[in-house]
């Protein structure tokens, strides 16, 4: 008899546990690695506030897009927006919600670690292998008073496909005609010169090891590892130090309604020119994306929270918060999400 009661109690708790599990909504997402530290912070705070659990897997932007297409996740995340050709491959329209902005900085290894100023054209020439020595007159002209050594330049780039490379090459394609026709933009490139390192740590490791080297890494990586980086001249002619503020400012321009926009070579006066958004991708009609109504509602609420309350976690983690203009556009996009044609917000 005692046993029976115990068993009944056990079953009861088990059932209660199961039903409470069924009530709590769980969302799954996959994609970009770049915003992963920010997203995991946001998602854990959001879980504390609302009890909605979000599983995010940082498998890379490409993987995130593929999984969203296969409808195995509720949302995807990407550092590069899906181009027109890619959009057609989705069975139903998708939306890009900007969450934060990041930047790519030019880092280098020179004796005495001087602060360098560079222009887009000079960066392109270095990465094309046309400027091969640090004492080149083109670099000297930009940096009067800096003692530039007679040292061979070793170019270091990312060897793995990455959103960082995409933003960097997107910028170079805009400022150098030769880069655009010879190399182009993409996550993996046919590099004309130099060595490849895997990931930000790979590039940073090589740059630290090789005197005379120059490479590019994400701003957050450079900031948290105290790496030297160059000021880069923007479209307005100002030399901009990459920082959270100057990256935020890069989005202080006219933005398109669908937010599928590259911020590189921004026309903003004090914006850092090698910046870019990172997006969360969702189906416009979440029913089409295979979500239940509860999940759809939770996802929309989460997105709203991320572009508003969630923004306070950005700066602490070296990410740039959305500019006012970007936030307004994001709100509009979130409001346009529907379920079976009816708006959710």
């Amino acid at each position, binding site marked *: 008899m005692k046993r029976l009661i115990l068993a009944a109690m056990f079953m009861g708790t088990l059932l209660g546990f199961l039903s409470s599990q069924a009530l709590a909504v769980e969302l799954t997402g996959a994609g970009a690695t770049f915003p992963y530290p920010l997203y995991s912070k946001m998602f854990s705070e959001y879980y504390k506030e609302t009890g909605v659990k979000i599983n995010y897997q940082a498998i890379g932007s490409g993987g995130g897009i593929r999984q969203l297409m296969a409808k195995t996740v509720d949302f995807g995340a990407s550092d590069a927006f899906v181009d027109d050709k890619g959009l057609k491959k989705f069975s139903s329209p998708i939306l890009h919600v900007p969450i934060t902005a990041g930047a790519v900085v030019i880092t280098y290894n020179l004796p005495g670690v001087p602060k360098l100023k560079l222009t887009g054209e000079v960066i392109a020439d270095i990465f094309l292998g046309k400027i091969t020595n640090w004492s080149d007159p083109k670099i000297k002209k930009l940096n009067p008073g800096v003692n530039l050594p007679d040292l*061979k330049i*070793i170019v270091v780039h990312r060897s793995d496909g990455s959103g960082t490379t995409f933003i960097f090459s997107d910028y170079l394609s805009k400022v150098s005609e030769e880069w655009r026709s010879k190399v182009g933009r*993409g996550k993996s490139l046919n590099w004309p010169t130099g060595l490849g390192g895997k990931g930000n740590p790979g590039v940073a490791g090589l740059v630290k*090891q*090789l005197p005379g080297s120059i490479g590019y890494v994400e701003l957050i990586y450079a900031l948290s590892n105290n790496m030297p980086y160059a000021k880069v001249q923007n479209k307005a002619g100002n030399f901009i130090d990459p920082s959270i503020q100057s990256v935020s400012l890069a989005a202080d321009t006219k933005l398109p309604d669908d937010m599928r926009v590259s911020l590189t070579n921004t026309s903003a006066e004090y914006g850092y020119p090698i910046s870019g958004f990172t997006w969360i991708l969702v189906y416009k009609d979440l029913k089409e994306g295979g979500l239940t109504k509860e999940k759809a509602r939770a996802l929309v609420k989460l997105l709203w929270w991320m572009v508003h309350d969630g923004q306070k976690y950005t700066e602490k983690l070296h990410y740039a918060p959305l500019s006012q203009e970007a936030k307004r556009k994001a709100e509009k996009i979130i409001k346009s999400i529907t379920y079976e044609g009816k708006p959710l917000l």
Partner: protein
Amino acid sequence: MESGGEGSPPLLHSREGMKGMKQDKVFKTILWLGGIFFFLLLVLMFILIFKGSLLSINTFGWKFVTGKVWDPVSEKFGLLPFVLGTILTSFISLFISLPFSLSLALFLGVYYKEGFLNKFLGTTTDLLAGIPSVIYGFWGLYFLVPLIRKLEMKIGVPPYGVGILTASLVLAIMITPFISSISKEVIKMVPQDLIEAGFSLGATTWEVIKKIILPYCCSGIFAGILLGFGRAFGETMAVTMLIGNSNFMPKSIFSPANTMASVIANEFTEATRDVHLSALIQIGLWLFILSVVVNLIGSFIVRRFEVK
């Protein structure tokens, strides 16, 4: 389990004997299923990889194998630089590793068959096999790269520090425990009477090794070499960190290059275009085919050297 034990004939008429036979049957079936399962797995893997690379095969044909340009932006894909990088690194590392692993095997298998030194050296080399490859990569990056750089500055080649030689050196260290411990085991298996017969005829240790042990162990040692080669062939992480990842045809052993495995590891996660993805899978197909070919050649040689 006590019944039908080793040596004694099975007790066919007792209950235990019947049980033993039944167990035997079940066991045999499990073994069969296990064997077939792994064969099927191999076939399925091949089919899947082949299907994945169909798009790339249809688009590029043989140009894929002979092409020297790898350009994901304009979708031109050529495999040759990576094949060359893979073959160069694995053969150079084998070449560097062989003298060390063979002398280690002879040292532990002939000269110090037991005792403290044997245990110490044996455990240390076995430990080398257990170190994760990413740690080899880090060690190479922070210790080996500056050394190679100094060497390169002395002989006047571009001082990158990373490249085919650096990757091969680390690979050589990684495969040494595989070759040496298999070679050691086969050397230990040489019948003692043969060795003693050699000594009784007045042969020196060196003569015994040259005339008796090495010919006897040839096929076994070769099997060890094959295993080490396979490891070097497919190694990804450590190579990626040290080879310089440049998609050009390598000009010398100091130039940066790239291997098949490392290109796949680098570009797979972010390959969004179908052709790019399919091209990467086709690299996998060729890696698959090449390693099967190497293994077939290897087992052919092993059989030829086998002592009858």
